[in-house]
């Protein structure tokens, strides 16, 4: 025989204040966990989604990031560019782009002292390979001019980098002639211009940073990876674009560790609080428990009933926590990408996984907090229960 759920709901409603406080305590714990998870989820999404499935990034062996890699124009032309298996552009040229990566500093809304951004110099192949780019405002830069285009995240987060503004880096000023958008989040944080112009500014001679290559198909991609990795004239690391960006998201790990650690400690605290509340509920209803037993409810139904009540508290808490975190969904923030010393903008994501994990977390807290008091209630002797209070 089951004790009806409405009995628990009414009791929770009668003890409104305690119910709200306990649920909210669980809610805050869930919120901390959910916030840190949505940060990492957003970061992962930003990086994971940033790679073309058939593109490879070539860097000097051991450099780990484009910024610390060097590839010269000569070795690009001689060793990489005309490899078989590289897809062809509309122009008939191989889809291989020699790129120059630097870091520049711009003041942003969040940090007026300036944040670092990735600045990329590309050649005509580079422009051609960026078919996913759409110019939301303005146009592409022209080669031979001190012009740049900026990603939509840059334009919105850095007031000085809007369309028509000039920004200072390298040896002088650059005119922002276009704002581009791309489905690849990590690339929205870049400032892109003519690589040859930038080489001069950064005194790089003919030393570029990395090469972006598009394979004809997956088989060709594997073959290219093998042959380029084995190339003796150049010691190269060959990574798929996806692998590369996923590695960059590792600086989010620390945040997730810290967030989880904090959430777990808070969870133990909330569990104790939930236990308190449930023990009080049991004590207060001691007589009722006796009466229910006399009416014929079994110990098991008493146990279940109190346990369910604690789970209802947990669900309320979980929902409260998620409601607290929900406004963060889609919030854009920046984080330093590992090893590139440049900022990548990304959006916090309260994904279904985040919501589910948080809810489960809340239920664990509720279960842990409710079990002992529920057992206590079920163990009560009828007569002692009736005599209590």
């Amino acid at each position: 025989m089951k004790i009806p759920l409405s009995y628990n709901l009414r009791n929770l409603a009668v003890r409104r204040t305690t119910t709200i406080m306990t649920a909210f305590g669980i809610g805050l714990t869930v919120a901390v966990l959910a916030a840190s998870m949505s940060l990492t989820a957003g970061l992962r999404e930003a990086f994971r989604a940033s790679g073309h499935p058939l593109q490879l990034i070539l860097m000097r062996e051991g450099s780990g990031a484009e910024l610390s890699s060097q590839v010269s124009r000569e070795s690009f032309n001689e060793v990489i560019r005309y490899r078989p298996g590289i897809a062809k552009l509309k122009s008939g040229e191989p889809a291989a782009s020699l790129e120059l990566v630097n870091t520049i500093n711009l003041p942003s809304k969040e940090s007026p002292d300036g944040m670092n951004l990735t600045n990329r110099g590309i050649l005509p192949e580079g422009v051609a390979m960026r078919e996913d780019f759409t110019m939301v405002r303005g146009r592409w830069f022209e080669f031979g001019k001190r012009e740049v285009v900026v990603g939509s995240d840059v334009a919105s987060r850095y007031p000085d980098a809007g369309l028509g503004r000039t920004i200072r880096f390298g040896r002088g000023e650059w005119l922002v002639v276009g704002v581009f958008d791309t489905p690849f989040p990590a690339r929205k944080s870049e400032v892109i211009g003519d690589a040859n112009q930038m080489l001069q500014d950064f005194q790089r001679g003919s030393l570029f940073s990395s090469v972006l290559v598009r394979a004809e198909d997956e088989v060709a991609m594997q073959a290219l990876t093998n042959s380029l990795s084995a190339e003796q004239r150049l010691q190269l690391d060959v990574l798929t674009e996806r692998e590369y960006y996923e590695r960059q998201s590792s600086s989010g790990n620390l945040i997730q560790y810290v967030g989880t650690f904090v959430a777990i400690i808070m969870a133990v605290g909330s569990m104790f609080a939930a236990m308190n509340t449930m023990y009080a509920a049991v004590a207060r209803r001691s007589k009722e428990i006796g009466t229910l037993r006399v009416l014929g409810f079994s110990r098991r139904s008493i146990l279940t009933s109190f346990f369910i009540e604690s789970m209802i508290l947990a669900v309320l808490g979980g929902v409260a926590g998620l409601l607290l975190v929900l406004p963060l969904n889609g919030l854009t923030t920046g984080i330093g990408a590992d090893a590139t010393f440049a900022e990548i903008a990304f959006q916090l994501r309260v994904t279904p996984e985040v919501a589910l994990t948080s809810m489960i977390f809340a239920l664990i807290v509720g279960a842990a907090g409710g079990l002992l008091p529920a057992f206590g209630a079920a163990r009560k002797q009828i007569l002692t229960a009736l005599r209590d209070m």
Partner: protein
Amino acid sequence: MRFLPLIFKNALRNRRRSFLTISSLALSICLLGVLTALYAALFHSSPPPGQELRLVTRHKVSITNVMPTWYKERIRAVPGVKEVIIWQWFGGWYKTEERDRQYFFPRMAAEADRLFAVYPEWEIPEDQKRAFQADQTGCIVGADLAKAQGFKIGDRINIRGSFFPVNLELTVRGIYHSPHESDSLWFQFKYLEQGFESLGWPNFAGTFTMLAESPEAIPGIIRAVDAMFANAEAPTKTETEYAFGLSFLAFLGNVKMILLSICGAVTFTILLVAANTMAMSVRERVREVGVLKTLGFTQEKILGILLGESMAISLIGAGIGLVMAQGLCVMLRQAPPIVQQTKTLTIEPAVLAILIGVSLLLGVASCIVPAWSAARTSILDALRFTD
């Protein structure tokens, strides 16, 4: 206060509840303590002695952008600058090319002839110092690093270049002790310059590290150096070495905001837990409030006794929590440091005072509503009250 015994006995009236509440508070306050200590260490600490006179000039954009070496002589001429050296972060790979914490340690090139003038607090035997300066491929390692990696004088250390495509073959010539940082490897900038020459690269400097004559001279130096190069090809940013170390934190995102929001959430949770307990505890005792009133206790005294109880619970929780927090701080010191500031992490007296103050305030805030309404209940209502 004559009512202290009563307050303490009341606080422990329901053992299980008090235990649960105090444990919950202790955990939260422990967390709050560590976070506050971290915040204080990162954003409100002052450099340890020996470091407060050191400044670092880097490219305004980032340390991966470089400056011409001739900046050094211009900086040396700035009033208040006692000594300046070129200091170049090298990075590279030791033993492995994986991201392996085990083999990760800072590797820096610096001008050996003046290095010890800029780091006067280092302790290193005179003969080791000279042996290092005399050997172009020599290096010195910090005592902590030597211990961690088992480096001894005479050991060969090979570092593969990454950012700089130069491979180093170094010999350990000395081991230095520093009161705040001794886990780095230093080698001669000349050796790196040779590598650049063989690559056909121009000479450049990653950072300049300088020693100021006095703390008063520091703001002037910062202004003068940055103004001097404001319109040059490589604009600079000069800051204290201490602040320079902190700038690496920026790559973790808005650390300040993250810390503050977690602290806020934790504090609010404490408030809820304590308020919930006190509400239950006061409710159970409304009848007793009536009895106390019959004995002649005024509303104010009863309010004081109830608030005192809540503050006592908060204080006990805070005491346990802060001890645990200090323990965690000591553990965190052992963790791989991101910034130097965490290596001496501790609950400073100021942090201690703030947290005790906060917990007292929380004690009052969590209890004031139920306590006030209980104290104001008329005697007869209180005596008749059933929960």
